[in-house]
């Protein structure tokens, strides 16, 4: 099963019953009482997913590890390498 098929299956499983309720194909006390909530549910879920995603990404960007030590070490080692290679006969500008 490809990811596309997985997602389509999930969407159908949720939107199937939802469509049935919203088009009054399925109708009972519960659906009558909560009709507006059911109608808006997919929108709310997508909005929540969007908000949670933004929060996760923001958190990860904020905590993105910055490797200052690695940069310093590299600068040092570049110098060391150039000197050593010069001794071995390779000149780098």
């Amino acid at each position: 099963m490809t990811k596309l098929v997985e997602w389509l299956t999930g969407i159908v499983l949720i939107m199937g019953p939802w469509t049935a309720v919203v088009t009054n194909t399925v109708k009972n006390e519960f659906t009558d009482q909560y009709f507006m909530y059911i109608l808006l549910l997919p929108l709310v879920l997508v909005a929540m997913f969007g908000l949670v995603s933004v929060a996760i990404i923001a958190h990860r960007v904020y905590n993105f590890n910055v490797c200052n030590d690695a940069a310093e070490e590299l600068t040092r080692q570049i110098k060391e390498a150039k000197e050593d290679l010069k001794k071995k006969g390779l000149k780098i500008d």
Partner: protein
Amino acid sequence: MGGGDKYSVLLPTYNERENLPIITWLLCKYFKESNINYEIIVIDDGSPDGTLEVAKKLQEIYGEDRIVLRPRAKKLGLGTAYIHGIKHATGNYVIIMDADLSHHPKFIPEFIKKQKEGNYDLVSGTRYVGNGGVYGWDLKRKIISRGANYVTQVFLRPGASDLTGSFRLYRKDVLQKLVESCVSKGYVFQMELIIRARQFGFTIGEVPISFVDRVYGESKLGGSEIIGFAKGLLYLFATT
């Protein structure tokens, strides 16, 4: 370390006249210190800046068994560079990395150790986990990186934290099989390698790495790269 194992580093180069000596020096230093049997295969795509001449001088210093030159006439892309490199690799393991000093050879002994620990088919360097990280990125670049990675995780659930990274260790036959089955280019090529690895049931280990970006100002991450990424993501979403 590891009786009989040999590690072939594939180094595709284009205009790396200044960086090639440094990366070679670092590779040889860390391999020698850890007593690892290795070779460095330089795949130069006809660099106009004289990279190949520098590579030949490095061959004189380190030996033709350690520095192997397999140049090509012009820029032909990373996938074919890997195929070309694998054909000439005499090691049973292959290491893929960038030649511009963004990937540091000091992590290679850690890759090797990790691979042996879990008998992994491939080990991927990750910038997003543990004390992995990046130097030289501004806020915009970090947002794009984390955002793209998040979208990829949600839609592809790849089982690896850093999909677009290109600092990895593979069993040679595993990389061969993967490259033959991949069709994408650029960032998406690296993503597809991991996704296909999962598809084929290969095991993946991870090692945190630091990525030092010294070319960020010069390199582009513009609209066309982002569109290319989205198209590639869609392709993988629909076919795997």
